[in-house]
């Protein structure tokens, strides 16, 4: 299995931000992490990427503990894109995407044909080939997000962790990013874990969903089972119902704007 973790716990001072998190992924699976703000989604992703040391438990890539791997070894297997990453304004898309090859070239080796091809592919997959020489400050929010995804793709890692990749994007770019995620999974067999706020997008795109609340795992299973469990309404404290859109597709969550109707 590409990525697993068992009893993963993370502590920020006295607060347990993640408590005994369990995850096991199949190759090519798309996994959504959902949960209210502060439920531990970002923490879980960072612990899986080995960026924060867990207080207990461990994450493992292909059975090897992440904590025992060098940063470069991790980066060859796993790419992680944090929320709203920052880069120098004068950096161009091409320069940013090039950094994705660092795990392969390291400090000394020069860029080979293989590396240039990976960069070209990453730019092409995100539709940025023609913009490659633009600096990041010249880009729209959607283009910048795609540039970062492109840099992660250039790593050619089998596992991709995305922290809210669609936040701050308009609906057009949101669909584009989700479509890219889907293609990577189905065509390239990339295993994807993403924290995401939009429940319907999570249900539509993912194979399985993990629901977190206050650092604890409340649900781990298929979207349809989550819809039937009633946990969404309970965890997010909203009223709504699941509507069938098509027989072969997962249901759509229709949220009631209770506070507004209640006030009227």
């Amino acid at each position, binding site marked *: 299995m590409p990525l697993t973790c068992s009893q993963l716990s993370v502590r920020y001072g006295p607060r347990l931000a993640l408590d005994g998190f369990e995850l096991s992924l199949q190759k090519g699976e798309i996994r959504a992490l959902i949960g209210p703000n502060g439920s531990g989604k970002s923490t879980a992703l*960072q612990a899986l*990427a080995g*960026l924060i040391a867990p207080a207990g438990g461990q994450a493992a890539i292909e059975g090897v503990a992440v904590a025992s791997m*060098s*940063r*470069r070894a*991790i*980066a*060859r297997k796993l*790419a*992680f*894109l*944090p929320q709203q*990453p*920052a*880069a*120098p*304004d*004068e*950096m*161009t898309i091409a*320069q940013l995407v090039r*950094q*994705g090859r*660092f*795990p392969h*070239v*390291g*400090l*000394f080796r020069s860029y080979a044909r293989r590396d240039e091809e990976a960069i070209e592919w990453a730019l092409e997959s995100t539709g940025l080939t023609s913009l490659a*020489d*633009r*600096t990041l*400050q*010249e880009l729209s929010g959607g283009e910048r997000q795609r540039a970062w995804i492109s*840099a*992660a793709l250039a*790593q050619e890692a089998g596992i991709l962790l995305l922290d809210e990749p669609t936040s701050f994007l308009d609906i057009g770019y949101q669909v584009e990013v989700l479509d890219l995620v889907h293609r990577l999974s189905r065509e390239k067999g990339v295993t994807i874990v993403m924290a995401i706020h939009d429940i319907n997008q999570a249900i539509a795109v993912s194979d399985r969903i993990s629901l977190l609340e206050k650092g604890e795992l409340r649900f781990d299973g298929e979207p349809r089972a989550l819809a039937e469990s009633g946990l969404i309404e309970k965890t997010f404290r909203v009223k709504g119902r699941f509507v069938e859109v098509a027989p072969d597709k997962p249901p759509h969550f229709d949220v009631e704007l209770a506070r507004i109707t209640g006030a009227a």
Partner: protein
Amino acid sequence: MTAASRIPRRSNAWLLPAAAASVLLSLLAAVFLGVVDVPAADVVSVLTGAGSPEAHSIIFEIRLPRIVTGMLAGIQLAVAGLILQTITRNPLADPSLIGVSQGATLTVTLFLLFTVYIFDPGSNTVAELPVAWLPLAGMVGGMAAGGIIYLLAFRLELSPLRITLCGIAIGAVLHAIAIGLIAGWGSARIEIILEWISGSLYARTWDHALFLLPFTVAGLAVLPLIYRPLVLLQFDAPVARSFGLSYRRQFSVLLLVSCALAASAVGVVGPIVFVGLVVPHLARFLAGRHFALILPMTVALGAVIVTLGDLAGRLAGGAEEVPIGVITALAGVPVLLALLRKTP
């Protein structure tokens, strides 16, 4: 999308040749011009192996050693500034940010105060002081201050902001102690200390250049190896680590390199203000989006600016020359302000 970004990218093929040419030109100007009027023909004949003994001694024992010392120090201060600005992600960083200048000031002060009791000075105290050891004393102090700040920041998790805050705090304390010692204990040694503190190339010899040379050579030799980490350290730690960088190790290596470059240079020429701050900004401005050009441009401009600054100081003051540190500070401010205006 602004109109400016649609303008075709300007070519930069001329940049490096132009930089190399300006290094050569500033070197020639500094050799040919000086307080003592040596006719150009005499300078040429000295350089070709002939010439009068006086002209020979002016060129080879006074001008060239100080020019070479200045160029080496300029390169080191500029590269140290570029590294610090990049890894702390603080555009105002320079060697005083990590306490190197202040630590060096303190040890140089202490050294001059205490050697009086160790060495038995003759009637003329100043001439008898072991000034040959000043660079080493300054360098040790600079490295020690950088080390203290690094250890403090390391314990507190090494974020760029914490390095900056630690550096300012420790630097202020070291500086205050040095000034207190000078004020309370000074006498004849004050003159040497003041000249050193303002940053000066006065009476620098081949010994000074030879002291710096290994640091400059080693510093330039590691540049290709630190280039990729330097690019990655522009990102936040989680991003850099996700790209496969051992953040803590590479940050420490680069901090050590910049500390060694800055401390050895400050030891020899004193804390020349603004070179470490302004030169990287100038290089960045000229290189634009071509990051690979910033390092070579910083090296070239570091040499040029110290050479020209020193030449201006020599010519402006006559026999009582103006220290290079004063020139770079006075000229550095308008340059910095002009660059800031161009930066969005």
